[in-house]
């Protein structure tokens, strides 16, 4: 069911929510996502350095895109062992929402917050372009602002976004409805041509079992401003930050 987006003033009147963006050495979409969070929330998120011993009490944690630790060894592997990640995991276990974008998705997977693995793109090259995604379900805090099955446009920009899981895991995440987004064509079909990186079953994003953690390769924050050519991404931030009250 489509849920109307809360308006800015509704958000402001509701219980104040707080968001944090974790900054790792080599993160480079931290500011970009903070801009989108601020636009949805009306104020800036906490920017938390990876060495911080304490995570402020927040309702949403964002693991941003970039090249934490240069993507050296494996994308996300070194950052997943950062001191702050123990606290992110603890908060996630208590139900705090975690949005993991691109390199953040790689970190969340390496940290065991989400199932599967992200391998080198099938085309072996870095790929930066807009893709179409199907919203697999709209009954989660991340996607409440979208229509069920809607096709939305977000950009991708990554080298290791090829989602992989063994058959058993794939069956489980499909069965439990943990697929968040799939790469599709304009008609909503998960075709090979629509898949920018060879991901298994065109999976672009997944939830954890409790659906309070979501990771995706595409960048909602990159099409969240009319001046940049689209606003599909803004709905995710408004869903999250408006639906938290």
């Amino acid at each position, binding site marked *: 069911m489509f849920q109307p987006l809360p308006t800015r003033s509704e958000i402001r009147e509701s219980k104040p929510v707080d968001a944090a963006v974790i900054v790792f050495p080599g993160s480079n979409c931290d500011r970009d996502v903070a801009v989108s969070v601020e636009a949805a929330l009306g104020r800036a998120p906490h920017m938390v350095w990876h060495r911080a011993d304490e995570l402020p009490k927040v309702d949403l944690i964002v693991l941003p895109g970039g090249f934490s630790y240069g993507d050296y*060894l*494996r994308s996300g*592997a*070194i950052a997943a*062992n950062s001191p702050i990640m123990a606290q992110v995991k603890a908060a996630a276990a208590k139900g705090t929402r975690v949005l993991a974008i691109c390199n953040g998705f790689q970190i969340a997977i*390496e940290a065991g917050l989400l199932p*599967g*693995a992200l*391998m*080198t*793109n*099938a085309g*072996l090259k870095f790929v930066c372009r807009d893709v179409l995604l199907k919203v697999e379900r709209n009954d989660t805090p991340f996607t409440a602002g979208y229509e069920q099955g809607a096709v939305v446009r977000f950009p991708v920009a990554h080298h290791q976004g*090829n989602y*992989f899981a*063994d058959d058993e895991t794939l069956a489980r995440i499909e069965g439990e409805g943990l697929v968040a987004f799939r790469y599709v064509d304009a008609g909503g079909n998960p075709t090979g041509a629509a898949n920018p990186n*060879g991901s298994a079953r065109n999976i672009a994003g997944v939830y954890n079992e409790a659906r309070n953690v979501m990771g995706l390769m595409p960048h909602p924050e990159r099409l969240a401003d009319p001046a940049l050519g689209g606003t599909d991404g803004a709905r995710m931030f408004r869903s999250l930050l408006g639906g938290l009250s």
Partner: protein
Amino acid sequence: MMKARVHVTLKPGVLDPQGKAIANALHGLGYAEAGEVRLGKYIELDVDAADAATARSRVAEMCERLLANTVVENYAIEIAD
């Protein structure tokens, strides 16, 4: 100081797009004799440990925690001094 040599390889059944691309490139260069190619990592590290057994068990821990992604990768350790 001991030397640890670690091989990190993809588990059988895990798709290896880079290995496949290398095989294709080799065929393109005229190496018809090249069959399947698998690409892994090779890590050399110096370890300060009392004996080989300790070194091995510490390096195994490092593999589990960082050097390998055990969801898709296997690792093998050799210790030399």
